[in-house]
């Protein structure tokens, strides 16, 4: 009996994760419906299904694990609070992304002075060092480029970072990004163009200049 229940839960989670990644409409998602009606176990499954994605998006927006964890916690609290008001006609993934972006903006504003959090992660050793003499030259170059790009991300404005994270890192279509952020596709395209240009310029300055 327990095994059957567990296998059903695993199947539900797999279904939700599949919908989340594909952006399909989860109108008949049993977990969401049960969670909406106050089922604590269903909400737990919903958290398990989305926690990695929520944390990864929050980490890309905020740049460090501690803030990302706090943000993810707040995201799930808001999800629980607003789940009864969720309109099943809209995509759950987009709705959840909107909560994540809003929470990350709030956390970033609260963080204030500690804005350059990507540097903090490097100092803490979470990210690979910029230049490692032990690694091969190729690995060192990749590591350095990644660090530079992350630093460039941290220099973007909140809106520019949001469109880059959603469009380029999460791989959402431009129209979906516009829906999530509540703006037009034209505006999002303009912000994407500006953000990509800034990242490239920042990267060029460090790589072509031969210095960090």
């Amino acid at each position, binding site marked *: 009996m327990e095994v059957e229940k567990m296998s059903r839960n695993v199947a539900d989670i797999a279904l939700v994760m599949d919908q989340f990644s594909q952006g399909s409409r989860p109108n008949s998602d049993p977990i969401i419906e049960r969670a909406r009606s106050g089922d604590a176990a269903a909400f737990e499954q919903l958290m398990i299904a989305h926690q990695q994605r929520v944390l990864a998006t929050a980490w*890309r927006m905020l740049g460090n694990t501690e803030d990302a964890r706090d943000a993810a916690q707040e995201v799930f609290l808001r999800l629980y609070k607003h789940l009864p008001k969720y309109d099943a006609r809209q995509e759950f993934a987009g709705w959840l992304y909107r909560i994540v972006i809003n929470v990350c903006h709030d956390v970033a504003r609260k963080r204030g002075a500690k804005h350059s959090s990507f540097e903090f992660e490097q100092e803490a050793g979470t990210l690979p060092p910029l230049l490692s003499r032990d690694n091969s030259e190729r690995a060192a170059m990749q590591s350095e480029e990644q660090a530079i790009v992350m630093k460039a991300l941290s220099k973007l404005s909140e809106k520019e970072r949001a469109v880059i994270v959603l469009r380029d890192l999460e791989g959402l279509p431009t129209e979906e990004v516009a829906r999530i952020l509540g703006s037009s596709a034209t505006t999002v395209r303009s912000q994407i163009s500006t953000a990509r240009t800034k990242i490239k310029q920042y990267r060029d300055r460090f790589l072509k200049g031969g210095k960090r």
Partner: protein
Amino acid sequence: MNCQKATQQIPLFVEADLETAEMQQVNLHLEACRVCREIAAEFQSSQSSLRAVTAPVFDEAMLTQMRHAVNAEIARTSAPVFAGLSPIWNWKLVCAAVVMLCIVGVVLSLQFSAPVVNHLGEQSAAHTCCGMGGVSDRHLRQRVPEQSAGRSRSPYRNRIRVASPAKKVTRTVPETPFDKVNPSHSVEAATVPSSLAIAGPPPEDTTSAPEPEMLRMEFQTADPNIKIIWLTPKEPTRTTPAADIQ
């Protein structure tokens, strides 16, 4: 398409964010322009670096801790407000609420039970004895001999003058014990209507010593609450106060 226009479109071209027609135009320009082709290659390299940014893998312990924190917060916020209070606290709250209601009730009752004020600006005779109509007969009996003497310099110096019906009644009652209660005691503009009522003598008091027969006159003012009662002996007897003798 010129290079300036193509350079503006390249950041979107590299990720196919342009319309189909624009994509074809930029593609045609890149085939012909080496500089713009190099710029596009740099953008593609930058985008490859961007996509290479991967979030760290979050361990299960951290995820479990996060879910437990969320569940604990949900349980805390969804609990009833008074769930953590003991029954004693509930009774205390109820008692405090009752006391507060009583205080508010007393204050409101005092606020709305102010004395009735007549058109003369005085308090109604029905509520206070400061008006002439409120003066008791016993007090009047004490004052009547002094008033009837008229010329005596009584410390009370009460003076009641009834000129004629439907005329003003002027009364000055200073230095009486009532004045200490209500200093604004002088009555002006009390109009005596024509229905002036002169009553007969009051019923005799069988318990007290024989007194001179008194004439009782009642004046009904325009205000139904104010009635002027004047008691005077039928045959004025001259009384000489001790002060006058000296």
